[in-house]
């Protein structure tokens, strides 16, 4: 089992290696693009969001009634001749299974894929007992031959090339093997058939354990699980307690989503329901019946089930979609994005099952783009949980120095804002009068040299406000601007452009001076206490203003103000205020498009070719898709960009923690922008402007990167 997760430097080194692995990069890139299109196609014929909601509800119910379902399952399964066990931890489960093997005089075991078995390192435990264990899922078998762990929950060997597989198969068969994939698959067919025939015991995982009738199910494409559960005389099922589910209908709902999400299939080749110890005519089974055992694994699950927030991780059906859509996974692969469990859920499960040290390093590697939450079969709030783990680890073990420092500064708005002004003054010698810091020596920038860093504005927006505040007679709406740090201190011109548009269209605009950072960067660093302080300060700043809306030009601020505050203030006295505050938050594009109803007639349409990047939080958290695109088309010539809704790699503090990954994501984005031939790129978020403009500048691209408000202000009639 790989384990680079013991030190931060080791982890970064492994990430660099992964980034240099051309094969891995190409494979994951191709997969990410084709998966997205194929997934969309197969979800067209079902109600995706409706089914996901059903799965979430069914799994939530099961989680809250775990004991009841366990008893019911046990009774029903025993009625049908199955032995049911319950293991409190990994060691006990391994012991149980080894004992079953011994009692039945088992020598050889075949296994079909089970992430739960990986969780408890079952193979190692059984091999220690002198048992021969063979994986039979092709991908699992390949990585077993290589003594590696899976790099994806559904496609465990996705990191390997046909050449590597051919070498491994050459070794295991003692014959030179061709690199033709169709041939290699047949090598496995031959080799593994022999193992199926020789085995005395089969071990399978289980996707669902149905309480109402004591059935277990497997979902496979290869058909190996059917053979594992049919050929040998003994069958052991290993299932986490979270696999329990109340009834059949819920399973039928879930299997409409699981394969679609996993591999963009409507259904896998085989979906099997084993209800009881059925017929088995293998030698040694006197009564012609299978010897069947189900071992339920607790391993902390009953405790997690009591956690008001984290209990939702049991909605996971291990479809792997959270890895499939993750821009970080796409770059670095599964071994760098999980320990046993892979992808977004892997970051979280590592904390619960495989130690806080590994989790501390891993849980940093999420950019917060929301792609995973957007597709998850169980509707799990994945990035939120990852942030929560950062907060918990900091609370349990103390936080790293950057976080503590940031907290110290942010707690006090005046001090923070004075520091920002001072920083503006002190970086001036490096800007050469442009918007970029040009002269900071590369030594200081190190890995951060992939983009030009912006300079702070000479005068923040808050200091300009008294001069530019417009006076609007008989306003249609009264709104307050929430600036966010980036626009207040780096890009005040974006806010000025917005104010121009709003005032021209009869909107009264206010700018409450007591507002401060939205607090998302603190959340990203796990600084929960200060992030709550900051949230309360902001709500107080807008209190009593009686605004129709609070408009923000930053998609990330918008999503944090709108949803994040209710999450972090859940259960406190401020919860209600957080909800009504959130209800007023709106992003700039939606406000001018949906609320003000700006139309083509409001603009002098320019002939400029303008392309778009959809900020993560705008398209996936706020679910805004049409408004900005229509606005661009009203004001200029809109040219769509390839992978428009894929992250730009910024992620706030993420780009500072993982510059090597951020840079690669950015590069891909800029390649796509270049292909459009557009001379201008607009976005709905100053963070994305910073990332994209910096990257474009560094590459010397002839493309102007702006906030969409600037495009609209320029072309307004």
């Amino acid at each position, binding site marked *: 089992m790989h384990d680079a997760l013991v030190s931060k430097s080791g982890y970064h080194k492994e990430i660099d290696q992964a980034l240099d692995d051309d094969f891995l990069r190409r494979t994951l890139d191709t997969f990410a693009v084709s998966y997205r299109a194929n997934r969309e196609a197969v979800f067209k*014929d079902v109600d995706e969001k409706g089914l996901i909601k059903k799965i979430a509800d069914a799994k939530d119910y099961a989680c809250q009634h775990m004991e009841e379902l366990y008893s019911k399952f046990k009774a029903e399964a025993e009625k049908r001749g199955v032995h049911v066990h319950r293991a409190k931890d990994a060691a006990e489960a391994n012991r149980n299974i080894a004992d079953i093997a011994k009692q039945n005089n088992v020598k050889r075991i075949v296994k079909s894929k089970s992430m739960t078995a990986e969780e408890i390192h079952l193979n190692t435990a059984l091999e220690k007992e002198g048992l021969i264990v063979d994986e039979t899922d*092709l991908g699992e078998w390949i990585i077993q031959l290589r003594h590696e762990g899976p790099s994806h929950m559904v496609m465990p060997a996705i990191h390997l090339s046909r050449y590597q597989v051919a070498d491994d198969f050459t070794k295991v068969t003692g014959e030179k093997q061709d690199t033709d994939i169709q041939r290699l*698959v047949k090598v496995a067919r031959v080799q593994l058939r*022999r193992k*199926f025939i020789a085995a005395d015991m089969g071990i399978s995982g289980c996707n669902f354990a149905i309480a109402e009738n004591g059935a277990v199910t497997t979902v496979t494409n290869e058909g190996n699980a059917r053979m594992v559960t*049919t050929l040998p005389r003994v069958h052991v099922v290993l299932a986490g307690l979270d696999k329990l589910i109340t009834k059949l209908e819920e399973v*039928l709902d879930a299997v409409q989503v699981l394969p679609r999400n996993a591999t963009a299939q*409507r259904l896998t080749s085989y*979906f099997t329901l084993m209800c009881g110890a059925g017929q088995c005519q293998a030698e040694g089974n006197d009564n012609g019946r299978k010897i069947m055992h189900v071992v339920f694994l607790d391993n902390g699950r009953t405790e997690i089930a009591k956690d008001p927030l984290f209990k939702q991780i049991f909605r996971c059906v291990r479809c792997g979609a959270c890895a499939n859509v993750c821009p970080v996974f796409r770059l670095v692969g599964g071994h760098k994005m999980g320990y046993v469990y892979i992808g977004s859920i892997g970051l979280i499960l590592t904390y619960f099952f495989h130690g806080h040290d590994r989790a501390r390093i891993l849980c940093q590697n999420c950019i917060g783009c929301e792609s995973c939450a957007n597709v998850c079969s169980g509707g799990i709030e994945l990035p939120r949980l990852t942030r929560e783990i950062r907060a918990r680890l900091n609370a349990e073990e103390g936080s790293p120095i950057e976080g503590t420092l940031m907290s110290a500064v942010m707690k006090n708005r005046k001090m923070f804002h004075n520091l920002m002004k001072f920083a503006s003054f002190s970086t001036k010698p490096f800007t050469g009068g442009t918007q970029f810091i040009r002269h900071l020596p590369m030594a200081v920038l190190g890995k951060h040299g992939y983009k030009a860093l912006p300079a702070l504005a000479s005068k923040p927006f808050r200091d300009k406000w008294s001069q530019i505040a417009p006076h609007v007679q008989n306003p249609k709406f009264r709104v307050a601007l929430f600036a966010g740090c980036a626009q207040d201190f780096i890009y005040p011109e974006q806010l000025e452009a917005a104010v121009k548009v709003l005032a021209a269209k009869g909107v009264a605009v206010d700018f409450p001076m007591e507002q401060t950072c939205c607090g998302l960067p603190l959340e990203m660093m796990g600084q929960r206490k200060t992030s709550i302080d900051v949230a309360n300060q902001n709500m107080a700043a807008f209190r009593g203003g009686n605004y129709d809306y609070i408009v923000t030009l930053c998609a990330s601020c918008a999503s944090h103000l709108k949803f994040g505050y209710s999450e972090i203030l859940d259960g406190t006295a401020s919860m209600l205020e957080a909800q009504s505050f959130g209800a007023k938050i709106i992003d700039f594009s939606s406000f001018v498009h949906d609320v003000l109803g700006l139309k083509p007639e409001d603009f002098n349409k320019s002939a400029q070719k303008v392309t778009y990047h959809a900020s993560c939080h705008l398209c996936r958290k706020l679910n805004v898709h049409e408004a900005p695109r229509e606005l661009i088309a009203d004001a200029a010539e809109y040219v769509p960009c390839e992978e428009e809704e894929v992250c730009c790699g910024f992620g706030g503090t993420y780009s500072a923690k993982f510059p090597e990954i951020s840079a690669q994501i950015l590069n891909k984005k800029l390649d796509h922008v270049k292909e459009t031939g557009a001379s201008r790129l607009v976005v709905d978020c100053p963070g994305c402007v910073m990332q994209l403009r910096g990257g474009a500048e560094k590459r010397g691209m002839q493309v102007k990167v702006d906030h969409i408000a600037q495009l609209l202000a320029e072309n307004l009639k």
Partner: protein
Amino acid sequence: MTPQELVEAFSAKAQAVNAVVQEVPTMAAALQYVVDVCANKAPAEILADEPGTEKGPLGPNKQPTRVQKIVAAPQLAEEDFALLAKSCEEKGFLCLREGVRKYLSGIDVGVGLAELGVAASGTCLCNTDNEDVRLSGMISEISILLLKKSTIYPDLPSIADKLRDRMGHGEPTYTTFITGPSRTADIERVAAVGVHGPLELHIILLED
């Protein structure tokens, strides 16, 4: 959906996952189809030791092939089986109704009866409680399922009650939903069929 639409939707979805779908008028024609398929295929490879079995030349995977082809049809009604067995005999094929476990190293054709079909995904639900039935669908190079057109349902939720009935009586059951042949994309995401189970799946749609 009308019955005809269900049949069309089922066929389209099944073909989309590489199943061969064939409409035939009668059981006799279906059985003839089975015999033809077996006659036209290369003899099955013997993937593992099978003492006492006569071995032919090496097949595509460098394994010896069967000299006598094997068809297993454990689920057929007695008179249908008799008919199939007779045609097989004429062709020199071994036709099995039980004892499939003796031939785990691979047979040519397995014939099964689908209990019902699911149009949304081109899926057949098979009662595989009987071990011979289960095995013949796993270790055959070509799996043939017979499905009555009148038993095609729109989607998974619409068959929930039938499935529950099957599983609710306290007797062990083993139910398999089959959607296309055995497949994998575990090496470089390249699709390949026939990793463990059948290399081909044929679905014969029967009039009632």
